[in-house]
Structures are given as structure tokens and as C-alpha cells.
């Protein structure tokens, strides 16, 4: 099981993403963004997937900022929205 974190521009975006993940059977936890990931104090969704990450496997919304893979204490960037 691989662990990922998605960050958002709004709390609403995080809630929508969480609901979509749950519909897809993906385990999630909604929480504040970890400080070592961002200086923003918004909401993120931590989620776990069996298969490799792919954008097509998730329903991404316009409030999504980035998705990273958790690798111990560090993160590997997988997706970032257009600025």
C-alpha cells in the first residue's frame, strides 16, 4: 500500500476529493497540511492506494494544488496543478 498526500487551495476541494476517493474505495484521512510539505495552513487529504498513482485513477478537481507520494519523512512530487 502506497501513501500519498493531496493538498488543495480550499477546504471544500479537500472534502470533495475525499468523497470521490471514498466512492472509489480508496482509504483517506482529511487533516491539516504537514508543515514540511507546505507553508500553507490549509487542508490536505492523506490517501492510500494499492496500485501505482495515475491521474486517471482519481477524480481530480479544480481546487487540487498538488499530489505527493510519502517516502518516510520526505515527499516525491507526482502532480501539480497549472499555476
Amino acid at each position: 500500500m502506497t501513501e500519498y498526500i493531496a493538498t488543495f487551495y480550499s477546504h471544500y476541494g479537500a472534502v470533495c476529493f475525499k468523497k470521490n476517493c471514498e466512492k472509489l474505495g480508496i482509504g483517506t484521512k482529511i487533516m491539516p497540511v504537514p508543515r514540511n510539505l507546505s507553508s500553507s495552513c490549509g487542508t490536505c487529504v492523506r490517501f492510500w492506494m494499492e496500485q501505482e498513482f495515475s491521474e486517471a485513477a482519481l477524480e481530480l478537481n479544480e481546487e487540487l494544488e498538488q499530489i505527493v507520494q510519502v517516502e518516510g519523512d520526505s515527499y516525491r512530487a507526482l502532480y501539480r496543478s497549472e499555476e
Partner: protein
Amino acid sequence: MKNEKKAIVAAGLVIGVISALLVFFGNPVNMGFCIACFLRDTAGALGFHSAPVVQYIRPEIIGLVLGACIMAMVSGEFKARGGSAPVTRFILAVFVMIGCLMFLGCPFRMILRLAGGDGNAIFGFVGFALGIFAGVFFLKRGYTLKRSYKMPALEGQLFPVLQIVFLILLVAAPAFIHFSTEGPGSLHASIWIALAAGLIVGGLAQKTRLCMVGGIRDAVLFREWKLLMGFVAIFASALVMNLILGAVTGTPFFNPGFAGQPVAHTDGLWNALGMFLAGFGCVLLGGCPLRQLVLSGEGNTDSAVTVIGLMVGAAVAHNFGLASSGEGPTSNGKIAVIIGIAVVTVIAFMNSRKKAD
């Protein structure tokens, strides 16, 4: 995660000590820091309002923005961003300031007032917490001011540069800048001590994301207590420092009670309603006035607009007789707070999508 918690508590302890020391060095009692009061004083110094007792360019504000800016640049976190409903944020900020000046302090000063024994701040705290609950209610119903976008670097740098201009005006003290000769505006630590305090607190607040609103919001939304512990740490260390300073100097820095508290009034209902408005508005803005200053230092132009809104709100509050005094709230102020709560509720409702969960 544990390190994050320790860092927040350590920063809170340091900030509490600095806040108490600023009073020792000359700031008004229980006003080591007050973002609302200091923005109001700066607005007055620039002539945006003409209340003669609250006019002074506060170096703490300059330091907070520049400290956060330097810390963000050093850690590669300075990013010019903006475009997330700036006019809505401006209006919210105006009413947040009106709420703060009903209570006579921002959330930061509310903690410092509690640490100084001011019982009136308990009513403020209750109202503030209820205001945050109201904001969270709308967050859960899909409230959003939509995303921000990348801006040219210069756009994010302008607000920190403006602080340097304010510092030059403070030091040069030209005739067109107003300086109070009596009242709270005349009480201040020396420029360089206040600036250093602001720089340190700004840097620490950027590093730890300390936010008076975020603490309660995260506790309610996620049962996450980290930010709230920073809040508690500020209270504890300011309280201990007040007791130590009182013992060492023979001047009481901790005066428990309700009547006769410095720059405060005893009307519990309006203390609570003022901070209700402030807490509610700050959740919709995404952070307390301190956090807005820090974000503006990180290049967030939406927060810079918010800070400008806070300054305009201060000017409006004094020009229209909305700000309270030690005598109590004014009739105009009560009407403005009720209008503010109505406006903030409408903004929250209009920017909420269908029920999110």
C-alpha cells in the same frame, strides 16, 4: 509531526516572553502585541483617521511582515500569489477590524489580556470561539473564496517593500506623519527593540504557521491540537513573565479582575459579540490578523489586501465613532457589529456551495 508540535510550543513560549518584555520596554499594558491596535495606530499616523491618542507607526508590524518575508525567502517559500476574491477579503477585513475594535484587541491581544489577568477577555474568548464555530459551519457547507494564482514576483514583493517605506517614515518622522503625545499611541518600546521583536515573531510565526484562528479551527475540524498548543504556550509564558516582571520591578504586570483594566471595557456582551465577528470573519479569511501579516510577507497578495482592509476598517471605526474606549462600546459601534455579523453571514452563505459533507 512531534518536532512540529515542539517547534510550535517553543515558538509560542518565546513569543509570550517577547510580548511581556515589550510592555516592560514601554508598550501599553497587555499590549506587547496587538495586530488590530498596531494597524490602527499606523493608520492614524498616516492620517487615515484623526483620533489623536492612537497614532504611531508601529515597528512591530513592519518587523512581522519583514521577518516572515526573510524567513520565507531563506527557506524558498516566498511565492507571489493572489486573485482569490480580493474585494470580498477586503470587506471581510474591514468588519474583522470593527469587531476587534469593539473588543479593543485582536485575538493575539486577547491572549495577552488573559495573561495580564483581564477577566473581560474571557467574554471575548467565548465570542471568538463561537465565531470560529460559525465559520467552520460554513466551511463544512462548501465555503470557498476559490483558488489563488501565481503572480509576478514584484506583486508579492510590494507589500514588504511598503513596510520599509513605513520604517523610513517612522525614523525620519516628517511633519505630515502624526505621533500621539498622550494615550496608548504615545506608549511604545524604542523603535529598534520593537522592530527586532517583530522580526523574531514574524520569522517564528512563518516557520510554525502560528495562527490564533487556525488553532481552534483545526481542533474543531480535525481534532488536531498542534496550533492550539502554540496559543496556550503564548498564554502560559506571558503569564509567567508578567508575574516575574511584577516581582522584579515592583510594578504589577498581572492584575486579575474586570474593572479598571488597561485599554479595555467591562461590557461582556459586546466584548463577546465583537470577537464573535472577528472569529467568524477570520475563518472565512483563512487566518487571524497575525497570520494575514505573515502571509503578506510570504508574497500572498490576497493577505496584503486583507491587511489593507484591516487598516481601512480601523480608520472607519475611528472616523465613524465605532471603536470602543475604556468607557465602553458606542451605539454606533454596536450597530456596526450587528451589520458586520449580517454581512459576514451573507458572504459566507453566498460563497458556500451545496452541502459538502
